[in-house]
């Protein structure tokens, strides 16, 4: 049962990533793309968590944590760039 649920979840987040891709490609505003990337980051975290469960391992945990951190920092940088130009003003 867990396998099926896992496959379902994988499918959901995979499809979600494709939706994100659509927005990343189509925009139209930089903000829209940044948002899509930010969402992609979140979906990626979910996918890695699923991968951990599927493989019964925790070795990728730190990586997903790092994705969360870097995703945040990069989203804020992009946005700050649009708002102010200087990211660390």
């Amino acid at each position: 049962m867990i396998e099926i649920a896992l496959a379902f979840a994988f499918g959901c987040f995979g499809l979600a990533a494709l939706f994100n891709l659509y927005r990343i490609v189509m925009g139209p505003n930089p903000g829209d793309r940044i948002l899509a990337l930010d969402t992609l980051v979140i979906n990626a975290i979910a996918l890695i968590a699923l991968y951990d469960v599927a493989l019964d391992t925790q070795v990728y945990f730190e990586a997903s944590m790092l994705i969360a951190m870097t995703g945040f920092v990069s989203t804020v940088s992009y946005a700050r760039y649009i708002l102010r130009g200087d990211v660390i003003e």
Partner: protein
Amino acid sequence: MDTTSSMLPLIVAAPFLGALLPGLMIRAGRDTCTWFTLLPTALALLMLVLHAPAVIAGEVFHYRLAWLPSLGMNVNLMLDGLGLMFAGLILGIGLLIILYARFYLYRSDPMGQFFTYLLLFQGAMVGIVLSDNILLLLIFWELTSLSSFLLIGYWNHLPEGRQGARMALAVTGLGGLALIGGMLILGNIAGSYDISVILQNSEAIQGSEWYLPALILILIGCFTKSAQFPFHFWLPHAMAAPTPVSAYLHSATMVKAGLFLMARLWPVLSGTPEWFYIVATTGLITMVIGAGIALFKDDLKALLAFSTVSHLGLITMLLGFGTEAAALAATVHILAHASFKAALFMTAGIIDHETGTRDIPRLGGLRQLMPTTFAIGALTALSMAGIPPLNGFVSKEMMLEEATHTVWAGTPWLLPALAGLGALFSVAYSFRFLVHVFFGPVREDYPKPPHDPPFGMWAGPGLLALVVVVTGLFPALVTPFVDAVAAAITGGHPHAHLSLWHGFTPALYISVAAILGGALLLALHRPLATGWRRAGPPYAKAIFDAVVGAATRGARGVTDGLHDGAMTRYAAILTLATLGAGAIAWSNGEAGPPTRALLPVSLLPAIAVALLVVSTATLVVLHRRRLVALVLLGVVGLVVAIGFIYFSAPDLAMTQLSVEVVTIILLLLALNFLPQEDPPEDSMSRKIRDGVIAGLGGLGVAVVAFAMLTRDFALPAISEYHIANAYKGAGGSNIVNVILVDFRGFDTFGEIIVLGIAALVIFALTEQVLRGPGADWLANWKGARREAGDRHPLLMVIATRVMMPMALMVGVYVFLRGHNEPGGGFIAGLVVAIALLMQYMASGFAWAEERRRLPYHTVIGLGVLISILTGLGAWFNGMPFLTSAFGYVEIPPLEEFELATAMLFDLGVFLTVLGAVMLALASLSSVARRTGEKVNVHAMDVNPLRGRPGGEED
């Protein structure tokens, strides 16, 4: 017969060593300087003369010193008759020239420099004629070209001097290089570069298929040096040199180097039809053309220069005949020409010096004003004309005699006829020299009032004029000497019959005809000159200039065209070259079928690849919008990181993620000051071109990647050892980390050095830019975009207060566990950097900096130092650099934990990474602050508590 003489190297060395003296002595005055120039020359001449009797008696002196034996290039010297004659001329005339130059040079001319060059030349020349090793000879040969370049260009404020020098260098340089080729071939055929050995191998050489190439190359060398047609044109332009140089190099000595070499190699090269036709014909043509042109030159030195060309042709022709008698004649004419021509040049120089001009039309009537000069000039000019009883007549008769005995291509009359024509011209220009300069009415308009020069100035030419007369009257005096020389040339035992009178021979008739014809020609000079000027052949200089000019322009065009700074083309060429070479390599090998089971395709990886491909493609399409491109780069980076996770590389994923975010921030910081968009400047064809190149590149890489992925290691990979020994040998279970800090710690050592250097470069660069013109521009810089208010939003500031410490903790965690689980110093460094970045983004870099200033340089230096010292620490265990040690420590009540020196090394990595990233950010931030950006006092812009009693001081 062969005797070793250790004096030979001294003869060669004396002028070279002596070359140091004039430069030093010039401070002691011009006379002292002259004396110290005469001294080495005289010493060398003395040493040479000491050998003369034995050499004339047939002895050959040798000297050998190994220099580069493996190549066969040694300091092997040889003194035989030929060498003796040339060395004697070089040193003897050299003495006279030095004396002459003392009076000729103006006070403003740097005399020390002049004599230095002259002695260098002299040494090189002596070296040529005494070399018994053709490689050594080549060295001296080229040295004469170089010193001649300096001497011609001595008056380098004159354009003629500069151009003449370069022309001479170009032509003789060309010849020298051809000569190198020819000599090497010759040496290879003979199996030795020693002339004495080569001379023994005449049959092998003439029988070799390489004979003709070698001959041609060597002759190019000789012809260029001796100004043979069609390389004759440089010589007249070398007349831009001060007259002592013209007299010395360009009449008496250097231009004879080609003749010398032909004579030197005569036994092995001559005697073949090729030799005859090339050498004799070239000589003949040169003789006639040179003489003809000389007739129409108004410049005294130019006249003499073309006359020299002509006489060199004459000697060349004689050598080309390939007979002993002709060799004898050549020898005699070399001596005769050296004596009269040097004297004539000096005479011309005296006239120039004393009248202020050497333009024949402005001269005339000097007979009374400069009687001594006239006497010398008359004797030597008549010798040049071949008038008995002067030495020029003796040798010219011998030449005509040989010409009448030689059949050219089945035509017996051709040679004598043309030789006679040459003689006729020769008479004509000689008479012209005499008549148009010295005879005629005294003029009123000499640039300077003419008078005879001081004794020192005419002593040299006077002495030579004496020689001209004496050897003309009593040619037998030099017979033994000539025999010795000719013997050295031919390797036989020729005997000369030198006399003024040989009876009524065809040669005599030709001579008489030439003298009469010459006189007639002089009488007709004016109309002929007019015709010449109208229809004369193109000046060789014009042709040379055109050729060199075209070559230079062509070279400039090619060079600037190829290297026009078009980096985009450079990169395209690099790509295509790589593809081409790769394709050639690929097609030369065999690409086999898969040898490993392939992974099945599943949905999510396919989606990831789709994400990668589509976002990359979008990046390319939208790349002109730079911010959007950066966002897409972030997507690509994320997908790559997820790919690393999917394929079992957590460390890589973490590194990729953290590096990428820092990279993007750096790019954003830089982009702030750059244009926000690329202008639409690429044509469609250009896009297609680049697209094709890029597509091919991608295809190539994909093919190779697929081939690589589908085939297993042909041999077991060394990483099996790493897997087996990571824990056992290095105490870590994260194999990647163990490789990084232990097995291949040296790579990591280099890597942090790279980072450290990067930071230094960035720092230095920023300092530089901020001190340069960029700073002023920045000061007035206004960002293109409208800035939103609220620089430091409250929400971000508050979130960071919690998140930053947490992120720091994550950094420590990642660092500590790296040896056993994914992580390590590098990632930890970046995580800490990212944590600090959050703070910088929240309240600004400068604000944060004011609260805790990180000494970045120190952090970096400390990091590198820790790594080095950890590495060196192993020495105390008697182990090599970077040998790690680890152990397990138990501090009750704690459980045991591991301590490894590798972690100390990793700490160095951590610090370097942290310092480097921060320094880069600080540098960019300092650029931003140069725009007048204000540093905020408060952590956040919007704070409802601010200003209230008890409100937060932020």
